[in-house]
């Protein structure tokens, strides 16, 4: 992804006509699909000792969780970047996921673990998502509103907001009764290895519903990506599309975070990689590409984790390491555009 490679690719692409590009996009998506299928098969079958039924059931559940998270993270990141007209910021970088953690912590602190855990998870989830949407609305209006802001200022704000939320979470969790804190940890820092079945089903349904809703928006999102003025000029109700997209983002981020905890850089990694590999801005291509890449990254990362590091690390560390490097590369490249 060096400058040289990029310009060379740019010139190579210049020679391609529109139908040639479409063929290449289709091929890229197929290759991605095959790679993901191979990784999934390996994940399900490598090193099975003892009962196959049991192993497949266990691994299948983890795989389902990864698929749900991959779709949620991919769609939420691409949408967020479209409505904010940038390729660097993601909901996670702007502190959305850590706010979600803070909401849960404060909830346990104020209401008590007993109340929180006995509340219907669907109701609990609904409340959390509403708060997150409120935050998203305030953040969007104040930061991305009318004037164009410097992307560096936004990155800085995201870092400050994120660490503020983390600090507040730490503060509140120290004030919590130790027993309640254990419950809280259970709520928060679930990983792919311990996903609750009921929660997984609920998340899968939510992600499917939101993604189906987003699908209707796709042509208009393609236009919104051109910027507010151009979108309005082309007759798109910009504010409405942005609001609907941010609503979807809030739900998806909440789902992904609730399922497996924060994986900050996964979205950034897959959204940008998908655009680069597919060479298009069209959401109908980028979204499936990003989701496949997400699943590939998660399943592949988990395989590496289990086979190479023998579980001595966590998946988010692996993904964040790679994603962090991509983030820095993008920041360095940004002024050229």
């Amino acid at each position, binding site marked *: 992804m060096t400058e040289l490679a990029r310009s060379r690719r740019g010139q190579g692409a210049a020679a391609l006509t529109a139908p040639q590009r479409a063929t290449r996009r289709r091929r890229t998506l197929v290759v991605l699909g095959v790679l993901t299928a191979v990784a999934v098969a390996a994940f399900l079958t490598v090193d099975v000792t003892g009962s196959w039924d049991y192993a497949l059931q266990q691994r299948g559940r983890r795989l389902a969780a990864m698929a749900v998270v991959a779709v949620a993270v991919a769609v939420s990141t691409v949408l967020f*970047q479209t409505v904010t007209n940038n390729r660097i910021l993601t909901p996670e970088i702007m502190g959305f996921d850590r706010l979600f953690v803070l909401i849960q912590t404060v909830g346990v602190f104020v209401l008590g673990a007993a109340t929180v855990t006995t509340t219907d998870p669907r109701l609990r989830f609904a409340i959390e998502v509403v708060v997150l949407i409120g935050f998203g609305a305030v953040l969007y209006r104040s930061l991305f509103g009318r004037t164009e802001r410097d992307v560096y200022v936004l990155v800085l704000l995201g870092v400050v907001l994120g660490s503020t939320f983390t600090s507040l979470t730490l503060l509140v969790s120290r004030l919590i009764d130790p027993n309640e804190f254990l419950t809280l940890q259970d709520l928060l820092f679930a990983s792919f290895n311990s996903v609750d079945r009921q929660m997984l089903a609920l998340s899968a349904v939510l992600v499917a519903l939101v993604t189906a809703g987003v699908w209707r928006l796709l*042509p208009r999102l*393609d236009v919104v990506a051109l910027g507010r*003025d151009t979108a*309005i000029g082309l*007759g798109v109700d910009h504010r409405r599309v942005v609001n609907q997209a941010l609503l979807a983002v809030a739900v998806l981020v909440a789902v992904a975070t609730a399922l497996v905890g924060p994986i900050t850089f996964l979205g950034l990694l897959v959204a940008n990689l998908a655009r680069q590999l597919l060479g298009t801005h069209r959401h109908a291509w980028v979204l499936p590409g990003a989701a496949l890449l997400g699943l590939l990254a998660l399943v592949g990362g988990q395989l590496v984790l289990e086979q190479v590091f023998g579980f001595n690390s966590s998946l988010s560390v692996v993904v964040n390491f790679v994603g962090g490097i991509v983030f820095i590369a993008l920041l360095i490249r940004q002024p050229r*555009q």
Partner: protein
Amino acid sequence: MIEIESVSKSYGGVRVLDDVSLTIPTGGITSLIGANGAGKSTLLSVAARLLPADSGRVRVDGMDVATTPGPVLARRLAVLRQENAMSVRLTVRELVAFGRFPHSGGRLTPEDHRLVDEAMAWFELGPLADRHLDQLSGGQRQRAYVAMVMCQGTDHVLLDEPLNNLDMRHAVQMMRMLRGMADELGRTVVLVVHDVNVASCYSDRIVAMREGQLVAEGPTSELMTPELLRKVFDVEVEVHELAGRRIGVPWS
């Protein structure tokens, strides 16, 4: 026809548009001139419903721009702002094709493809069709944006400083193409222009603004006078007749 009725707009206490009323007739090129900060771009943005007016209203062919559904208006009026930095990477063809969005909603028909090709040919973008915008020069990119706006197929085309970043050759080329859009295709073109001589040579009507208010409007020949230009720009301008055109010379 664009009817602007007592439109006012303020930014943080500063009145940028002060009770502006104006009717832009159908056909021809109308140029908005005025010093920096006179409110030309704001007026254009309000007319194109990119900015809401604080008071007053704008009607395009009788439709109020504030209340007409976006897609309906986008088939009557197209607009191009000055800054068009995009975070997405598009080819020229992809950009121009977006002009058909109000008509086909993202699914291009064969007719749309034909119109896209036509718009690219009109602005001599054919050989650049499959190049990415970031691989083009400023002038080529500007032509691509204007081609998109033309491809929208609207009766009214509003352009905010379409000559920005263009050298002399490309500025003349652009103005000739816009002239052609008005004369051959019968579009109503409204421009914000910095250079009074461009306005004088290429437009049918001039609208002069100063400090958020309308100073004068009318046929170009009537408005290109030293008195009016002094009033608008606060600088002495001699006006000379050269090859049948009125040219303002401010360096006297």
